[in-house]
C-alpha cells in the first residue's frame, strides 16, 4: 500500500484543489459536433477571430471562453480532419452566449471516436493499433454472441466458431495465442467494466462449452474497439496480453423520443451433410475387410454381428437428427432525452432452435442507459443490463453418447425404432447408444441470470480537469440441470435407473474506479493525461449434486433421487488492485506521443511478485502534414505509427497458487485433510513485449483508407504447471517457464468505389481485411516437447507453432499389398510412434474478410465473405470412420475407393478387420486442408420511402432479406473446417474435428424502423 501513496496523494491534491472559480463573467460557450454523427468533437480549437483568445473542446465537445469583451464576435471552430466553421455571436455584458457548431468531416475516418480504455480519442490521434467495428456490421447476425458476430470483421482478430450449436463457446485470438496454460481469450470490457468471460457451467459436454460472452445482446452494442497492440492494451495491465475488446453500448441523444424496432425471423438448416455409407455399401465394405484378412465368408457374421441381409434397409442417421429450425430476434428500444437527461431503454428476445434435435438457445435482455447532467459540472451516467439465457444442450464431440457423434458412427443397417415405436439400442446390435434417443429423451439445460452494469459520476472542475468515479458489477448465476434417461439402453444411466445432475454457480465481479483526466492546450499543442486507480473483487461459488435412481421420468432433480452419488460445494476468488496513468501529447497536431503505465497487484500471485508494472509508449507522426511533403502534390493523409509495451496474463484457474495448502482427504467417512498443493511464492504474470509498426493512409478525402501493421509479440514467463520431485509428496506447481512468439502483418482497406453526388445515387463500398500471423514456441521447461489432444496429435515443441499436428507420415498405398506406406522418419526399419513428425498446423497462414455494399435509392445489397487459408483440420472422425473396417462404426463414403486387389492405385488402404493394413493408424492421412472461403452474409434491404412509411408512423423503415453461411468453398470433407471439438478453452488441442456440431445456413427476413 505504501508504494501507491503518491498516486493517491496526487488525486487528493487534485480533488481538494476544487477551485471555487464559479466567477460568472462574460463568456461564450457551446458544443462542437460532427455534422454527420452528431457526436461531440473533442479537441477542436475554438477561437475568437482576430484575437488570440480561444480554447479547446473537452471530451464531449463542449467549450467555454471566459472573460470576453461584450459585443459581437466572430467565432471559429476548427479541427484537423474537419472543414472549419465560423459563426457570429453577440454577447451581452455579464452573460454567457451560446455558439454551437456542426462541422463537416473532411476525412471521416480521422474523426472517428476510438474507445481506448479510461477515455476516448479520435482516430487521428491514435498512435497504437486499434480496430473498430460498428454496430451495423454485426447487427442481425443470427448468432448468440458478439464474439461469433465478429468473425472476419477486424484485421488481427481470429474468430473460430468451434461448432455450430446455439450459444456455443467461441475461440477468439487477437494476434495469435500467447499462452500454454493460461487463457488465450481477450479481455472484454463493456462500458468500462471488465466483463466475466469464462465458462461457469459444471456440465461436461465434451467440447461444447459455453462462455459468459453470450450474455450480451449484439442489439445493445453501438461499437466495438479492439485494442490490439501493447501500447493500446497496456492500460489494462496484467490481463491485456490477449488484447482487449472494448464494447460500447447504445446511449440516448438529446432528441425527441425515438422508438426503434429491429426484428427478424429466420429459418436454419444444416449447411452440409457428410456422405456416409449406405447399408449395402457398409455391409460390403465390412465383409471386404474380413475377406481381405483371410476370413471365411461363412464365419464373418459371427465376427461382425450381422450378415448380408442387413443391407436390405438403410437409415440415414443424419436425416434423423437434423431438422429445419427457426431463429428469431426482436429488439425494441426507446431513446431520447433533453440537454440534461438522455435515456436508452431496450429489450430483446433472441430465440434459436438448434438444427440438431434437442438443442436450442434463447436469451432475453433488457438494458437501461441513462445520462444525467446534474449541474454544469456534475454528470452521472448509468449503464445497466439484465439478461436471462437458457441453453438446451446435448452432447456431441468426444463422447460415447453424442447425437452428432453417434449419427456419424452408427451404421446405416440399423433402424431408428422398433416396429412398436420404441428406440433401438445396443441390445439390437447398435455399436453405440441411439443418437435419436439421446436427442429426444435426454435433457441438459444451462440457464444464466445476469446483471451487468455500472454507474459513473463525472465532475468537471474546470475545462481542463475532470474526475470520474465508477462503480460497476457483473454478477451471474448459472444453473445446470441435466437428465440422463434410463430409457437409453447401453449406458450407465440405464443401469442406475436415471441420472440427474444439478449445479449452481454464482460468479461475481465488482469494481470501483476513480480517475482524473487533465486536458490542456498550449497553442497548437495538446496534452491529455489520465491518472486513476481501480479495485476489483472477483468470486465464484458453486454447488453440485448428482443423484441416481428415479421412481419415474417425471422426476428430474437430484432431490428425488434414490441416492446422491456426487456432491460438491466450494468458493474461490481473486482481487486486483491497480493504479494506471496515461499521457497523450499532440504536438502541432502532427506528432502524437502516448505513454501509459499500469501497476497491478493481484491476489493470485505470491508476496514476492505481487505487483507488476506494465509500461507502454507509442508515437504517431502525421507525415503528410510536414512541410517537406507539401512540395509534393497532396495525395492524402498519412500517419506513421510505432509502439512498444508490456502486457500481462494472469488467467490461470488456481487463485491460490502461491500457497502451500491442505485439501479434503476423508477416510472411512471421517473428515480428513492432506497436503494438496505446494505453493510457489515467486509466481508472477506472463509478460508479453510487443512491438508494432503501422501506418494509416487516407486518400481521396477518405474514399480509400488503408491501415497496415506489423507486429512482434514475445511472451515470456509462461504460466505452466511444472513437475516437482514426487518424493516431496507433491506432483506439480505453477511456475513461469517458457516463451512463445507471434509475429504478423495486418491490412485493412476500406474504399468507396462509387461515390454518389446525391443521397439517392449509386454507392459502392468495399471493406477488406487480411491478417498473417506466425506462432512459434520458443522455449519450454527443459525444452521438452509434449503432446495433447485426441490421440495425442497436438504437439508443443520448441520451434513449432503451438498445437502443431504430429503423426505418422502417410506416403500412399502399396499397389501390391494395399497396405498404407508410412515414412520411416528415424530410419530404423520399423514404423513406431518414434516415426511421428509434424505434418501440419491448426493455425491458418492468413485469414480475413471481404465485404461489399452497393446501395441505390432505398435498396442496399451487402455481401460479406470470410476466409481462412493454410490451416489443416485433423479429421479425427476418420479414426473410426476411415479405419478400413477395424471398428464397427459407419464409414465415410470416400472409403469405398479402398484398395481391392494388386495393381489398384488408390490412396485408401486395404480394408482390414484385424487392423493390419495401417488404415486405422492416426497419420497425415487424417489431416485435411482446412482452407475455406465462406459467403458468410448476403443481405438485401429496402428502405421504405417516407411517403409510405409515414402512413404507419414509421421513420427510417426498412425491410431486409438476409442469408448467413450461404456457401462454403473448401476441400475439407467434414461439416465445417472452422472447427475445434475440444472447445473454446483449448490452448493446445486445436483444429480437431471429432463429431462437432455442424453450422447452420440461415435465411432471414426482417424489419427495422423508428417510430
Amino acid at each position, binding site marked *: *500500500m505504501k508504494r*501507491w501513496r503518491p498516486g493517491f496523494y496526487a*488525486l*487528493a491534491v487534485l*480533488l481538494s484543489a*476544487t477551485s*471555487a472559480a464559479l466567477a460568472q463573467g462574460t463568456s461564450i460557450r457551446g458544443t462542437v459536433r460532427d455534422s454527420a454523427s452528431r457526436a461531440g468533437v473533442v479537441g477542436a480549437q475554438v477561437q475568437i477571430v482576430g484575437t488570440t483568445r480561444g480554447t479547446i473542446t473537452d471530451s464531449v465537445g463542449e467549450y467555454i471562453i471566459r472573460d470576453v469583451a461584450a459585443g459581437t464576435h466572430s467565432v471559429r471552430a476548427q479541427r484537423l480532419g474537419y472543414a472549419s466553421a465560423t459563426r457570429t455571436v453577440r454577447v451581452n455584458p455579464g452573460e454567457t452566449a451560446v455558439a454551437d457548431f456542426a462541422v463537416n468531416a473532411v476525412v471521416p475516418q480521422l474523426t472517428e471516436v476510438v474507445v481506448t480504455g479510461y477515455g476516448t480519442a479520435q482516430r487521428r490521434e491514435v498512435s497504437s493499433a486499434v480496430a473498430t467495428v460498428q454496430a451495423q456490421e454485426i447487427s442481425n447476425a443470427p448468432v448468440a454472441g458478439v464474439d461469433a458476430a465478429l468473425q472476419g470483421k477486424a484485421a488481427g482478430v481470429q474468430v473460430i466458431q468451434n461448432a455450430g450449436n446455439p450459444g456455443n463457446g467461441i475461440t477468439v485470438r487477437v494476434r495469435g495465442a500467447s499462452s500454454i496454460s493460461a487463457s488465450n481469450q481477450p479481455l472484454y470490457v463493456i462500458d468500462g467494466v471488465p466483463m466475466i468471460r469464462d465458462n461457469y457451467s459444471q456440465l461436461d459436454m465434451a467440447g461444447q462449452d459455453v462462455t459468459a460472452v453470450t450474455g450480451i445482446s449484439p442489439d445493445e452494442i453501438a461499437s466495438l474497439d479492439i485494442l490490439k497492440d501493447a501500447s493500446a492494451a497496456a492500460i489494462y495491465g496484467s490481463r491485456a496480453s490477449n488484447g482487449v475488446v472494448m464494447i460500447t453500448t447504445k446511449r440516448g441523444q438529446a432528441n425527441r423520443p425515438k422508438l426503434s424496432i429491429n426484428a427478424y425471423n429466420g429459418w436454419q438448416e444444416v449447411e452440409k451433410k457428410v456422405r456416409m455409407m449406405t447399408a449395402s455399401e457398409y455391409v460390403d465394405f465390412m465383409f471386404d475387410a474380413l475377406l481381405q484378412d483371410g476370413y471365411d465368408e461363412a464365419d464373418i457374421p459371427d465376427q461382425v454381428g450381422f450378415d448380408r441381409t442387413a443391407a436390405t434397409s438403410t437409415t440415414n442417421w443424419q436425416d434423423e437428427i437434423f431438422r429445419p429450425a427457426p431463429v428469431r430476434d426482436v429488439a425494441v428500444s426507446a431513446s431520447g432525452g433533453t440537454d440534461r437527461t438522455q435515456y436508452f431503454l431496450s429489450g430483446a428476445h433472441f430465440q434459436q432452435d438448434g438444427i440438431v434435435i434437442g438443442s436450442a438457445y434463447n436469451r432475453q435482455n433488457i438494458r437501461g442507459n441513462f445520462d444525467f447532467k446534474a*449541474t454544469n459540472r*456534475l454528470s452521472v451516467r448509468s449503464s445497466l443490463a439484465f439478461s436471462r439465457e437458457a441453453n438446451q444442450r446435448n452432447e456431441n464431440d468426444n463422447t460415447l453418447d453424442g447425437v452428432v457423434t453417434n449419427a456419424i458412427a452408427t451404421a446405416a443397417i440399423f433402424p431408428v425404432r422398433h416396429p412398436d415405436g420404441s428406440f433401438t439400442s445396443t441390445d439390437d446390435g447398435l455399436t453405440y447408444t441411439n443418437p435419436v434417443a439421446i436427442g429426444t429423451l435426454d435433457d441438459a439445460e444451462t440457464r444464466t441470470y445476469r446483471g451487468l452494469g455500472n454507474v459513473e*459520476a463525472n*465532475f468537471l472542475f474546470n475545462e481542463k480537469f475532470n*474526475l470520474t*468515479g465508477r462503480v460497476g458489477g457483473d454478477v451471474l448465476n448459472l444453473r445446470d440441470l441435466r437428465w440422463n434417461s434410463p430409457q437409453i439402453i447401453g449406458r450407465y444411466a440405464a443401469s442406475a435407473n436415471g441420472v440427474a445432475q444439478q449445479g449452481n454457480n454464482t460468479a461475481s465481479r465488482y469494481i*470501483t474506479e*476513480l480517475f482524473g483526466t487533465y486536458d490542456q492546450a498550449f497553442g497548437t499543442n495538446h496534452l491529455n493525461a489520465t491518472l486513476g*486507480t481501480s*479495485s476489483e*473483487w472477483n468470486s465464484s461459488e458453486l454447488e453440485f449434486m448428482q443423484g441416481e435412481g428415479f421412481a419415474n421420468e417425471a422426476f428430474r432433480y437430484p432431490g428425488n433421487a434414490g441416492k446422491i*452419488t456426487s456432491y460438491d460445494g*466450494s*468458493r*474461490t476468488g481473486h*482481487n486486483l*488492485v491497480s493504479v494506471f496513468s496515461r499521457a497523450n501529447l499532440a504536438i502541432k497536431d502532427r506528432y502524437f506521443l502516448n505513454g501509459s503505465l499500469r501497476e497491478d*497487484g*493481484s*491476489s493470485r500471485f505470491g508476496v514476492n511478485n505481487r505487483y507488476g508494472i506494465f509500461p507502454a509508449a507509442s508515437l504517431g507522426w502525421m507525415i503528410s502534414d510536414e512541410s517537406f511533403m507539401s512540395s509534393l502534390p497532396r495525395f492524402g493523409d498519412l500517419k506513421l505509427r510505432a509502439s512498444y509495451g508490456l502486457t500481462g496474463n494472469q488467467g490461470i484457474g488456481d*487463485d*491460490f497458487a502461491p*500457497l*502451500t*495448502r*491442505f*485439501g479434503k*482427504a*476423508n*477416510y*472411512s*467417512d*471421517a*473428515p*480428513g*485433510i*492432506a*497436503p*494438496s*498443493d*505446494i505453493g510457489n511464492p515467486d509466481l508472477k504474470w506472463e509478460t508479453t513485449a510487443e512491438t508494432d509498426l503501422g501506418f494509416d493512409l487516407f486518400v481521396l478525402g477518405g474514399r480509400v483508407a488503408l491501415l497496415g501493421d506489423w507486429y512482434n509479440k514475445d511472451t515470456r514467463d509462461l504460466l505452466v504447471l511444472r*513437475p*516437482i*520431485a*514426487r*518424493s*516431496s*509428496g*507433491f*506432483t506439480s*506447481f505453477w511456475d513461469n517457464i517458457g516463451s512463445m512468439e507471434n509475429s504478423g502483418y495486418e491490412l485493412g482497406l476500406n474504399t468507396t468505389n462509387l461515390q454518389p453526388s446525391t443521397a439517392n445515387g449509386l454507392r459502392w463500398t468495399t471493406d477488406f481485411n487480411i491478417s498473417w500471423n506466425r506462432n512459434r514456441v520458443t522455449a519450454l521447461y*527443459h525444452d*521438452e516437447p509434449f503432446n495433447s489432444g485426441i490421440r495425442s496429435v497436438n504437439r508443443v515443441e520448441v520451434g513449432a507453432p503451438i498445437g502443431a499436428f504430429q503423426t505418422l507420415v502417410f506416403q500412399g498405398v502399396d499397389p501390391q499389398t494395399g497396405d498404407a506406406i508410412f515414412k520411416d522418419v528415424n530410419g530404423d526399419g520399423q514404423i513406431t510412434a518414434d516415426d511421428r513428425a509434424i505434418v501440419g498446423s491448426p493455425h491458418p497462414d492468413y485469414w480475413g474478410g471481404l465485404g461489399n455494399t452497393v446501395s441505390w435509392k432505398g435498396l442496399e445489397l451487402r455481401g460479406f465473405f470470410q476466409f481462412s487459408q493454410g490451416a489443416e483440420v485433423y479429421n479425427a472422425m476418420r479414426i473410426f470412420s476411415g479405419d478400413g473396417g477395424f471398428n464397427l462404426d459407419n464409414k465415410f463414403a470416400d472409403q469405398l475407393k479402398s484398395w481391392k486387389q494388386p495393381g489398384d492405385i488408390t490412396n485408401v488402404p486395404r480394408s482390414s478387420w484385424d487392423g493390419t493394413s495401417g488404415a486405422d493408424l492416426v497419420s497425415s492421412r487424417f489431416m485435411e486442408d482446412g482452407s475455406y472461403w465462406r459467403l458468410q452474409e448476403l443481405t438485401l434491404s429496402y428502405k421504405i420511402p417516407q411517403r409510405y412509411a409515414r402512413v404507419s408512423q414509421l421513420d427510417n423503415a426498412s425491410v431486409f432479406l438476409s442469408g448467413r453461411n450461404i456457401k462454403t468453398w473448401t476441400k475439407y470433407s467434414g461439416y465445417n473446417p472452422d472447427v475445434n471439438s475440444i472447445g473454446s478453452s483449448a490452448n493446445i488441442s486445436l483444429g480437431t474435428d471429432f463429431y462437432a456440431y455442424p453450422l447452420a445456413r440461415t435465411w432471414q427476413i426482417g424489419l427495422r424502423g423508428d417510430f
Partner: protein
Amino acid sequence: MRSAHLTPMNPTLMKLRVLAAAFLLVGTASCDRELTLAPTDKVEESAAIVDAASARAALNGAYDALQDGSYYGGDFLFYSDLLSDDVQHTGTFSDFAAADANHVLADNETLLNIWESIYATIGVTNQLIARVPNVPNMDQADKDDIIGQALFIRALSFHNLVKLWGDIPMPLTPAASIAAASEIERTPVAQVYTQILADLAQAETMISNTDTRHATAGAVTALRTRVYLYQQNWQGVIDAADALEADYQLAPEYADLFTPDGNDTPEDIFRVSFTPVEFNDVGFYYLSRSFGGRWEVAPTTALRDTYGVSADPNYDPDTVQTRAAFNPVDPRAAWNIAYDSRNRIFGSKIPTPVGAEDIHVIRFGEVILNKAEALAQRNGAGDLTLAIAEVNRIRARAGVPLLNATGLTQAQVLDLVYRERRLELAEEGFRWPDLVRIGQALTVMNPDPANPDVEQYELLLPIPQADLDVSSKLVQNPGY
C-alpha cells in the same frame, strides 16, 4: 483558507467532496489487505494442523492416501502381481501390459502414479511427525497415538518402496521449498531399513488405537515380522510373530476376509477401509465384464494349476478350461478364481466391482507364513516340523489336506512354505516382491534361461523419469 471557511459552501460542491472522499476511501482501502486472500475450500499449510481435531483429520489424510487408486486402492497391488507369474494382463492399459511383460520403462505412467501415491502418503506422515508435537493444548497420549500411527504408515510406505526400487529418496521432513525438494538423493537400502525399524520401535510404544482400520500396536509388530523377513532376521520374525499369538487368530473361513461390507474377523491386523464412495479398483479390475468388472487383469492358469485343480484323476489342465469343468479341490482356488460364461478366467477374490471391500495390508495369516518361513530358514532342532505345523494352521483353515513333515529336507520345507504363501496370499500383491526376496524371480519367470523374459536388472523397477528430470542428484537403477 481564512475566507473560504467563512463563506457558506455551495451545497452541491460539499456533496461532491463527500462523494470524492468516499471514492478515495474505496480506492485506498485496497492494496495488500485486498490482495491477501485465504482459500475457502482448502487451508494454508500453517493453519492446517493446529489442534487435536485437525491433527486427527490430518491423520485421516494419511489413511486416505493409502486408499489412493495407485496405492492400496489398486495399481500398487496390480503391479506387485502382474510382474509375477500369478497375474496376467487381459485388458487395454498398455502400462499394465508392460508390467505383465516385465518390461517397465522409466516413463511408464502407472509406475509414476504408484511412486507418486506412496510418496504422497509419506508426505502426509512427515507433516504429522513434524507438526503434531508442536500443537498446543493437546493431550500427550493423543499426540503419541497420532504420531505413532504416522510413523507406522511411513515405515510401511518406505518398505513398499524399498522392496520394489532398492535405494530410494527418503524424506523425513516436509519439503522446505521447491528447490530443496529437487535436491534429494537416494538413500541406500540398509539405511532405509534402519529408519523403518527405528520408526516401528517408536510407533509400537506410542499407538493406543485398537481399531484395525487404523494402525495398532499389533500392526506395528506384524509389520516387523515382514520387515525382518526381508532382512533375513529369522529370530526377529519368530519373536515378533509369537508376540501376536495372544491377540489374533485365523478367521474361521477364508471367504470371511473378503466380504463386501468388510466384516471384522479375528485375523484382521491392519486393513485399509473402503466404502462405495471411497472405493478401491480391485474387484472392478479383476471381475469379468459380465460381473460388472473391466477384466483388466486376471489370474494365470499357472496359479490356477498350483492349487491342484481337480480331484478328478482324468483332469487335464490343458484342455479343461471351461466354467463347468473348473472344479478345484482347494476352496481358496474356488474363491479366488472363476470362469465367465465365455470361458474366460478371471479373478474373484474381491467379490464385487463396487470396491467397498476393505483391503488387508497385514493379516494374521501372513504373520503365520512369515514365521513358518523364518523357522524353516533358521532350521534349528525341530524347526522344520514347527514350520510345517504353521503351514498346516493355514491349510486347516483353508480346508485342504494337512502336510506331513516327516523326512522333508529344509529345501523341501521351504518350497512348501513358499507354495502355501502363494496360494494363501494370491492376488493380494505379494508374489513379485516375494519372488525377488527369495531369489526365485529369474528362475520362475524365465522357463527358458537361454531366452530370458526377465533380466537381472529388472528385479528392481526404474526410478520414474519424471523425478529424474527434476532432481539432478537422483541416479537411475542400472540397466534402465
